[in-house]
């Protein structure tokens, strides 16, 4: 996919965005950090504005990127989509061809949006999106050329919404999963299942999803035998769930 041939969406940056970014930058320890925080805030604000055009709700106030203390402690550009997860919005400055991913933003993100800046800061362009990455072996950077069109962000958000809606139904699989999940939020489980669906071969689903689900259940006292049986049960459940979700996502596609 050659992004250079496609027109990109332009998002205007209003004075309010600059005011908020300025306030966050003003309390940082150095100019360099202030600049990082300022540009991160503008990138996040632009994606927030764009999602508002698509009538997708976001929550700037709950995002670490708009919290003075959190921005002082880490290089974050997160945007919270309530009930769904966090999106990482990374600024791309003129001449840059890769997006560096700080270690603090690799986990717990549903995906990454590249935001192109030019010298004039009255607008930015949305370069594209990559969905969440393999958290056990995450890349430290994403090439701008690897970004996919921004439509894939819509696809990603919609898939996660559909899966969460399924988990609320009376389907026996959904009921059983709800009863089993103890230590992780449903949005987290769904995000991980979606990644398995997207990145693994179908024959790997059972094991990958089972392992993921096992990690989300508080471990009790098990003998080896009962632990094996519990693993098998979980794999059955994980496989059933992923097949249900795959059905929903395939029908929609």
């Amino acid at each position, binding site marked *: 996919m050659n992004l250079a041939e496609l027109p990109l969406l332009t*998002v205007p940056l*209003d*004075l309010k965005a600059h005011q908020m970014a300025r306030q966050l930058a003003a309390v940082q*320890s150095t100019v360099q950090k202030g600049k990082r925080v300022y540009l991160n805030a503008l990138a996040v604000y632009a994606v927030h504005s764009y999602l508002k*055009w698509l*009538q997708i709700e976001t929550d700037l106030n709950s995002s670490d990127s708009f919290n*003075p203390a959190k921005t002082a402690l880490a290089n974050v550009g997160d945007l919270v989509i309530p009930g769904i997860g966090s999106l990482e919005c990374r600024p791309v400055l*003129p001449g840059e061809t890769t997006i560096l991913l700080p270690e603090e933003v690799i986990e717990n993100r549903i995906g990454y949006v590249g935001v192109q800046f030019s010298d*004039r800061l*009255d607008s930015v362009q949305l370069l594209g999106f990559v969905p969440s990455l393999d958290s056990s072996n995450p890349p430290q950077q994403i090439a701008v050329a690897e970004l996919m069109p921004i439509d894939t962000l819509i696809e990603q958000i919609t898939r996660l919404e559909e899966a969460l809606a399924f988990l609320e139904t009376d389907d026996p699989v959904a009921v059983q999963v709800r009863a089993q999940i103890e230590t992780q939020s449903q949005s987290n489980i769904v995000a991980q299942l979606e990644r398995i669906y997207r990145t693994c071969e179908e024959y790997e689903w059972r094991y990958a999803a089972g392992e993921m689900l096992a990690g989300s259940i508080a471990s009790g006292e098990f003998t080896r035998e009962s632990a094996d049986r519990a693993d098998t049960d979980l794999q059955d459940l994980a496989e059933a769930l992923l097949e249900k979700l795959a059905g929903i996502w395939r029908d929609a596609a």
Partner: protein
Amino acid sequence: MDDLDGRLSALIAEIRQNPANSRKWRTAMNKLLLEIQQLPGLKKSVHQDYPEALNRTFEWVSREIAKFEPRQSSVSKSLVNWINGYLGWRIQDLHSPDKDAPISLNAPLAADIGETTRLELLPDVTLSGLDGMIENAQKESTQRIGLELKLYIEQDPEDKLKNSYPRSYPECNCQFLSKRRVLQDHPDKFQDLAEELNVKYTTLNSHWKRKCEPSLQEIARSLGYKQEPQP
């Protein structure tokens, strides 16, 4: 009806036929906004609040597009007129006397040259001017969490950070890690720190996440930082 008009009509029809939270509606709206941004003839202004006017206009298009009725033979011209109707009002709002900086907006650009260029009328919003603007903002700021945290990490007055480390690795303590992760403009990688301290990556990483990060956030809270910036 040319290609563009055909595309616009199809997108608008798709939007009308689907609920706003559906994949089809969102994808069509995304494409429609992209088409609209390429249309010639959208009203422009160099007023500092023009980005806000434009942003509001796209929100309005998203809400109201179902009400759009093409009145001329050309869908695209008709759409531009329809959008300019709203955008024009938003721009006119910028002229209203209660606004701080009433600037002539619709006059051709050439009329301004000779006195002052329009760029100079805008606030300092360029990438190249950002360092200076932030430096000033930081000087004006009376309370800076970034500085206070830096001071705290360096002094660690109660040895809270220094005394927090994984068993038998006192060098891998939260003060040391905070200096290398938070205070540096370019933080060291966990992997490099682990090699330097001869500690397993997972040990260091989980100590940072489970102990250091919560401690630093607690310290930030104790320094009085809870609130988000107010718009």
